[in-house]
């Protein structure tokens, strides 16, 4: 039994070590003074602060970072608001068109974005939103996943609670804001987190719709980095590291909700 425990610990350390190797390589290359050594095994001094300084001093990284934050926080908040309203209503209220809407939401869960890119682009163009923040933000604003998540969660709100409030004469909107939203809070935090992470990683859509560097979020900027004059491998890696930091902080702070969101589909019906 003792030997088993040690064996298990050794296996875990080796496995996790291998999983962290690329992260380690990223740290090493991002801390290098130049890009002559790309092995990523041995630290050659620690120049990470200087490299970050270079990126924030001359490059477009601060712009990309700001755009990504605006994009992710902005659409995240909107997604939470709209999904909370719709998810709650679909779970607890009876109104015409509820079933149709639910079918629509479930249907979009299965759609692959690849085929929709051009039609969505044409719609955004008709709205005059090409090369604007709203053009980048709105099409990805509400996710079927979010509505579905909140709905499933809202099904668990006891009917009696809502009924009691109605008997007390509370209006439907008041019930939603005062009773449902506080109860839905864990699901809403999870949704914000999942939405933030997904948008933080969104490359395809901003690439298509944003024509000015001023508007680019991090993934587009990062993909474009090599073509900027004077940018080299170690600086690209530093930029990649900077890109990875905000999701990581958010994740550490809200780990509980993240795991809850991920396991949502696996544990609940």
């Amino acid at each position, binding site marked *: 039994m003792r030997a088993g425990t040690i064996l298990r610990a050794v296996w875990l350390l080796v496995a996790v070590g291998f999983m962290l190797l690329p992260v380690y390589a990223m740290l090493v290359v991002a801390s290098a003074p130049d890009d002559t050594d790309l092995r990523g095994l041995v630290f050659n001094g620690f120049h990470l602060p200087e490299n970050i300084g270079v990126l924030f001093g001359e490059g477009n990284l601060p712009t990309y970072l700001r755009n990504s934050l605006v994009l992710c926080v902005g659409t995240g908040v909107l997604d939470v608001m709209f999904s909370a309203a719709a998810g709650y209503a679909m779970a607890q209220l009876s109104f015409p068109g509820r079933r149709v809407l639910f079918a629509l939401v479930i249907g979009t869960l299965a759609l692959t974005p690849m085929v929709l890119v051009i*039609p969505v682009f*044409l719609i955004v163009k008709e709205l005059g939103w*090409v090369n604007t923040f709203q053009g980048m933000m709105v099409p990805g604003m509400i996710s079927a996943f979010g509505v579905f998540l909140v709905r499933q969660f809202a099904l668990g709100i006891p009917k009696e609670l809502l009924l009691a409030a109605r008997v007390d004469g509370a209006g439907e909107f008041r019930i939603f804001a005062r009773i449902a939203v506080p109860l839905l809070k864990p699901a809403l935090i999870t949704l914000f987190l999942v939405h933030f992470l997904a948008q933080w990683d969104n490359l395809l859509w901003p*690439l298509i*719709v944003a024509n000015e560097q001023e508007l680019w979020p991090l993934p587009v900027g990062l993909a474009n980095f090599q*073509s900027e*004059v004077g940018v080299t491998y170690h600086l690209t890696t530093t930029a990649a590291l900077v890109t990875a930091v905000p999701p990581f902080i958010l994740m550490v702070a809200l780990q509980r909700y993240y795991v809850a969101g991920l396991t949502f589909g696996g544990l609940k019906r």
Partner: protein
Amino acid sequence: MADLTRRGLLAVGALTLLAGCGKDQPRQQAADGRPHGEVTVWLHGSQDTGGQFQELVHRYIAEFQVDVKLLYLPVGQLDAKLLTAFSGGAPPDVFKIGHWSFPAHAKKKRLAPVDTKALPLQNYEPGTTTPLTYQDVPYGVPIDFNPCMLYYRKDRFEEAGLDPDKPPVTWEEVAEYSAKLTSKDRRRVGLQWLYGDPQWALMMLTALIQGKGGELVAAGGAKASLATEQGRGALTYMAGIGNPTLSNPLGALGLFYSGEAAMVVSGAFLGPALEKLGKDTLTFGKQYGVAPMPTWAGGPPVVPAYTWGWGVAKDSPNQFTAWHLVNYLQGAPSVTANLDNGIIIPTKGWRDAGPRGKSEIMKIVADSIPHVDFGPIIPGTLELAKAAASAVDSVAHGKASPAQAAATFDSTVRLVL
């Protein structure tokens, strides 16, 4: 209600589509022959000439009070972005794209013909604007014009007992020398191809097939076939030389630099690039030399070439200024600065623009202009080139016989052309 909504949605969908597709008429513009307003330019960055280019743009802005906006994009993303911009009706005024992209855009009426009042076309070497011309209308001007030539390592030739001053002249000799230059384990080879690169695969097949009197693309671009005697012969020939499993981050050019490859087909840019690489600089005439593109024994000279080109959008409200800017960017200071880096802007007298114009490499370029072949100038070149790379790669790796690869190529391109 459901029924009504559905029909309404379909109508809205169809409308959105049509609205996006039907915009063919160009916006009206003031053709007053004076540059003004705003011009956006999309291009890919270059480490070598980027600084000079930006300086030139600033000078233009100061001189003509035109607001020029530059957007640098990675080569791999520029085409896709340009297409969405075109279909969205909001293209940049000026863009730099490969010559292979011009026919498709021209066919779809997205390009503005060259405004010869702003940009005199007769300044260019005859033949170098051909690939940017579609159905007799010129749509662009060339930059980074590259006819192929043969680079060879003199040191490797000497080692193998070959005369370092007598590079191979025919493809037969290339094969013969390659056999002598290839080590037993094939870690060191004679001629190395640029495996996996579509444009280069297309160029090599063009040279080998056309040099034997065959045609990769026939009937004015309506039909392409590799399943011909010459096509299968070209694939067999390519598979017999080089080693597709050799690796280098810079590809075949890196292998040439390291000496693992004794010969490589490339353009004029390679010479200056080799001088800048790493610590062990290669010197022209010492470690390496150049020779004109080989021909088949007794066959005609065929020099495959490519070029990038400046184009202007038909929807641009400021076409005169756009061409005026292009003309400025192609002027004498650019020709000189580019020539220093081995990049050719083929305006007349380009060889006199700088000391490098007198080099052996540039002499080969000048001599090859009459025999230059840009390959098929048809929409669909991208797919043709990709299919060519697949065919060459699968035969080289022994995954398919020349006949099988040629048949696959034919059934792929039949759907495209």
